[in-house]
């Protein structure tokens, strides 16, 4: 009996494999999940990009839930998500921006063209602070709660789907 069972081993192994393959389809293997979910925001202080808007530092992230959006004027998907950010800002969501490895003049022109949703806007020319946030590309968006803890990270541009299913519900639950 055992002898017959052993002949079933190969197909059993394959069944597991096929299930894993099926589960893997549609998942993006290159997306790196954040190591900072549930952890406090890193210690940093970045200078402002514009003369009339404050920059960003750790202390600014401890009062209320906010979105921190890392972007750059040379980044094409950032253009795609920008209207969504404008929309969120108009709806009253607090959004802070970090301009990643960008020339201030280019960033200013870009924001002039597409609109500025940011209440605070800092510039990270070297990208060193972004490394501390675990940023590896742009755009990336973090949801930080009122205690300065990172609760969610979106790798890549924001989509309506992500905003509706993840970000807005989370913001709502944090507001209570």
């Amino acid at each position, binding site marked *: 009996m055992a*002898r*017959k069972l052993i*002949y*079933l081993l*190969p*197909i059993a192994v*394959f*069944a597991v*494999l*096929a*299930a*894993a*393959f*099926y*589960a*893997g*389809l*549609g*998942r*993006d*293997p*290159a997306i*790196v*999940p954040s190591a900072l979910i549930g952890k406090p925001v890193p210690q940093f202080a970045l200078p402002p990009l514009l003369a009339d808007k404050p920059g960003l530092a750790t202390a600014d992230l401890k009062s209320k839930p906010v979105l921190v959006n890392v972007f750059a004027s040379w980044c094409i998907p950032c253009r795609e998500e920008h209207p969504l950010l404008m929309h969120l800002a108009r709806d009253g969501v607090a959004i802070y921006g970090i301009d990643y490895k960008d020339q201030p003049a280019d960033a200013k022109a870009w924001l002039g063209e597409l609109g500025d949703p940011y209440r605070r806007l800092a510039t990270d020319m070297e990208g060193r602070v972004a490394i501390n946030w675990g940023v590896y590309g742009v755009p990336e968006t973090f949801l930080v709660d009122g205690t300065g803890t990172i609760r969610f990270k979106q790798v890549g541009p924001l989509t309506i789907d992500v905003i509706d299913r993840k970000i807005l519900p989370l913001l709502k639950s944090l507001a209570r």
Partner: protein
Amino acid sequence: MIDEIGHFALVLALLVALVQASVPLYGAARDNAPLTAVARPAAIAQFALVALAFLSLVHAFVVSDFSVSIVAENSHSDMPLLYKIAGVWGNHEGSMVLWVLILTFFGAGVALFGGNLPPTLQARVLAVQAMIGAGFLAYILYASDPFIRIVAPPDGNGLNPLLQDPGLASHPPCLYLGYVGFSMAFSFAIAALIEGKVDAAWARWVRPWTLLAWCALTIGITMGSWWAYYTLGWGGFWFWDPVENASFMPWLAGTALLHSALVVEKRDALKSWTILLAIVTFSLSLIGTFLVRSGVLTSVHAFAVDPRRGVFILGLLTIAIGGSLALYAARAPRLAPSGLFAPVSREGALVFNNLLLAACAATVITGTLYPLFVDALGETKISVGPPFFNLTFTPLMVPLLIAVPIGPMLTWKRADLLGAVQRLWAAGVAALLAVLAGWYIHSRGPVFAVLALGLAAWLVVGAAVELAERLKLFRAPLSESWHRALHLPRSNFATALAHAGLGITLAGVVSTAIWRVERIQTLHPGDVVDLAGYAVRFEGVVPHPGPNFEGQRATLVVTRDGLPVAVMQPEKKHFPVANQDTAETSIHTTGFADLYAALGDPDPRGGWVVRLYYSPLAPFIWFGGAMMFAGGLVSLTDRRFRIGAPARQRARAAVEPRPATAGD
């Protein structure tokens, strides 16, 4: 017009495949000769039709017919002709047609040259081959049509500049010949399960097709590695990238298959295992095809991602692999029990070989797929890279390589291990000398590196000793040895060649990995760098335009002890159409080492970053691979596998029984 013909040919091929997959099977089961005989012409027709489709694609690329979507996406009118043709398989859709072309090519081969096969077996083999063909033709026609037409743009996007290289252009056909070729071993295995019988004759019939595929895969992997080495600019040649692993896994399984089929042929043992191995080898090819095209794993090589493609191929996989393994579970227990052998015997050594190769394959499979499993199961993600594979694969290879020269020295059924090892004393001495020489020449580096050199010498001299044994060299008069050499079956020479090649490759891999000398510096014209005793003088960089690129070419003059050695001219190329840069490295080889130069970026003060490497024994890596390939080819020409002129052979066999040759 020609494209329509090509498309229609694919549709016809699918219909033929469906017929070929069903009618002969029915005919063989019912002992109906005319129905069974449908298999051979169907296989030939299927190949002809797919070839027609393939040629019409080639035509579309050669004349730059941009109304065909894949031509517009992958070709450009300025490209040299070779790369226009290579563009046919430089994209997903076209490469799938190449895949099916090779599949039907093997089918036609068995139809035309398999005259010595019993008709029912041949019919079943071709039927199974047609099933695979039908599946993939259906996939091509419904989800991956190469003949999709668009409004022709003024010019195309051009081929990825990295692929515009003669070595790489020819690499896919070779690889496909390899791992698609293993489909034939698969078909033979399924046919044997359907028949319910595996015997020595089966093993003999399956061997040439498996060997052909194995040879192609060996040289394909070697060429791919060599391409990476001279293109990528830092002298690396194997990265354990998922797509590389996708070709390496079938190679490991295929090597195991070749060896276990020997046991089936000679001793009528290990039958059920060999059948399983034949199924697994091609299954690994199919899984590899899936991995590369579905976007499930990250890889430098992967084609553009489309999950819908992935679902279809996964479906094909499930049917093919699931079906064959189910048949195996049902039928294998009923295969007649096999011959006995003592643990210490040639069979035992081959079992040892298979165990270790299977473990090696399992290591590569596990490492490649583990990230996928972890991701599918939970939230965390891990990645598995070269450090893992180097740590786990190497310890498994060591016992295998030690056993390689010993195995052929053992007799069948029951052998004297001590005696065999004693007869290898010359190889042992060579190993010791190699270790000492390595220690003397390179006084740095880990101990295992020098030991690995010893292992390489053990392999090479061991292969020579085994051959010398069979020729009774130094123990009998030279004339007798010569006489023996003339009549020794070719497979013995092939074994020696392939095993020695393994040792040569090992020496190359270890030397390059451990003792490579690297000099990365910013140079100004006139600067001289010392590279392992060579003096390399940087002369400067000049512009060098090309048909579809703008280039910068550096000149480096290499001398040793004042005597001129070479002039090396690495380049950087910028391709405006694709907006991509590539680097052309310059390699000067002495046969025993490579001098390797790559040009980096300029700095604002007029200097250029130049990377120089001295890689000892690097050419051995490719040379050893070529030796293994040659060994396989020599084995293919063994008279015992001659598959043409079956009638004459059968008549001769009937008249004079083949004498048993010693050391067979």
